[in-house]
């Protein structure tokens, strides 16, 4: 099934591109796309682009995880914490992060921290709200069982709520890393000297459609690999959970 699911669009692409219905400059064949990739590699820019973009995503993603996991757990557990954070999380969540990009550039310049910050801002609130939900979905029976076994609040948080929510937290991370790539491209499109998003914009200027497509495919591939790695990580960290 995955072969058909992945193969069918590729076949369709090949048929359209080889049919000559569109100029190859606009609609390159799969072989041309791969050749463009080889060119990027031999020019010595591809690896640098991949590393630059992946690094930004990684740091932004990790920072968002470090901030959102404790805040989400606290908000989900304690009503007082929810009262403290929810005005910010609730309202800012509906403001498009893309709109903040110029502001970030004005305040933090065009360097690495600004890009990492955009990735961070892009996903931190989603992470938090999803983790709050994960905590809320912990079955009451689990919490009540813990209470009748004699837990105190801190023990409940660290030894019950955290492990109980961990599978959902890992799921959240897996979902939101895709979002991290979206915001990274947004940041790189606006200002960068390196990176896959930058390469896409650069190639667009010269109508190197094949390079644009190649970079998009690379991002997709990195996404797949990350997803696979995070899934393996989830299985390793929570072998006790039901994994689909």
């Amino acid at each position: 099934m995955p072969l058909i699911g992945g193969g069918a669009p590729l076949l369709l692409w090949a048929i359209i591109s080889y049919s000559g219905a569109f100029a190859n400059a606009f609609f390159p064949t799969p072989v041309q796309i791969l050749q463009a990739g080889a060119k990027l590699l031999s020019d010595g820019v591809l690896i640098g682009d991949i590393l630059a973009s992946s690094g930004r995503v990684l740091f932004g993603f990790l920072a968002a995880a470090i901030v959102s996991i404790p805040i989400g757990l606290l908000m989900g557990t304690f009503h007082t914490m929810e009262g403290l954070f929810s005005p910010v999380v609730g309202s800012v969540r509906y403001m498009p992060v893309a709109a903040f990009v110029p502001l970030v550039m004005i305040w933090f310049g065009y360097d690495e921290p600004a890009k990492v910050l955009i990735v961070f801002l892009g996903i931190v609130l989603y992470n938090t709200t999803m983790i709050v939900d994960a905590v809320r979905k912990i079955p009451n029976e689990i919490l009540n069982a813990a209470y009748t076994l004699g837990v105190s609040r801190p023990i409940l948080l660290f030894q019950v709520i955290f492990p109980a929510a961990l599978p959902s937290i890992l799921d959240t991370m897996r979902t939101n890393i895709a979002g991290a790539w979206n915001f990274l491209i947004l940041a790189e499109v606006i200002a960068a000297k390196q990176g896959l998003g930058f390469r896409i914009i650069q190639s667009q200027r010269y109508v190197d459609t094949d390079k644009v497509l190649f970079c998009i495919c690379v991002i997709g591939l990195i996404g797949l690999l990350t997803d696979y790695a995070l899934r393996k990580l989830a299985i390793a960290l929570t072998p006790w959970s039901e994994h689909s």
Partner: protein
Amino acid sequence: MSLSLDFVNNPLAGRFWGSATSAMTELSLHPPGAAGSKFPAPPPPEELPDKLCVQKISKIFDYQSQPLTVLQDVDLSLKSNEFVCLVGASGCGKSTLLNIVAGLTAPTSGRILVDQEEVTGPGSDRGMVFQAYSLFPWLTVAKNIEFGLKLQKLSKRERRERIAYYLEVVGLSRFANAFPKQLSGGMKQRAAIARALANEPEVLLMDEPFGALDAQTKEQLQLFMREMWERTHTTILMVTHDVEEAIFLSSRVAVMEAHPGRIKESVEIELPEHRELEMKSEVSFIQLKRRITTMLGHG
């Protein structure tokens, strides 16, 4: 350590008798209603103070911004070593009452006493077994049992002994290192019962613990539960909607009526101490069943 299923020979067995004796000592020091008397007569066993006392418990919920009286002036007490089953129609407030006893829900009014002392929040003196989903899925069966023992700050050796003992009691020794997802429904409930028992609570509360099981597993667990009680004589308050189960297991059945929920009547179950599943088809059993079912029907 050798694991014996004979409770009296078990090094951990002392607790149950230990607590009964300490209650007696306490009583002879402060006899209720006999203050000042120098030589209080030792009380006959049936006048032992109540292990658990539910006093005038009422609970009013907010239901669609209307007050909904779910429990009204519920009184119920359990003697030490008593196994009481609470039966009643679905929605009459059984779970609410049990949660109040466990300290998980606050009553609107009334008090809960354990060993004459008022309790408010939840505590390890009142262990609880739920209908399902209460095992910690991230811990193995042994670690689930150990969870409460660690909270009680038992030494590593004590914890190991208790885990081994209660795993043996519920017949799950071979599954000590299994995660809950690897167990069948019946095994999960046995593990949850072991976890609650290992904490050695003063009172064990159970809310329809066999309600989610198939008929055959349910009967097996009823038998297991009764045997367990015959050995340990833990004080148990169990909710069930299955009248047959209530009669088979308990020394007394408390029948609840609804709207508002209160205890309608208590029926002493005068069946032999040692119970077998075959008893369910005996005349005396069927008569009890008919009597209680009638009470429920006219609630």
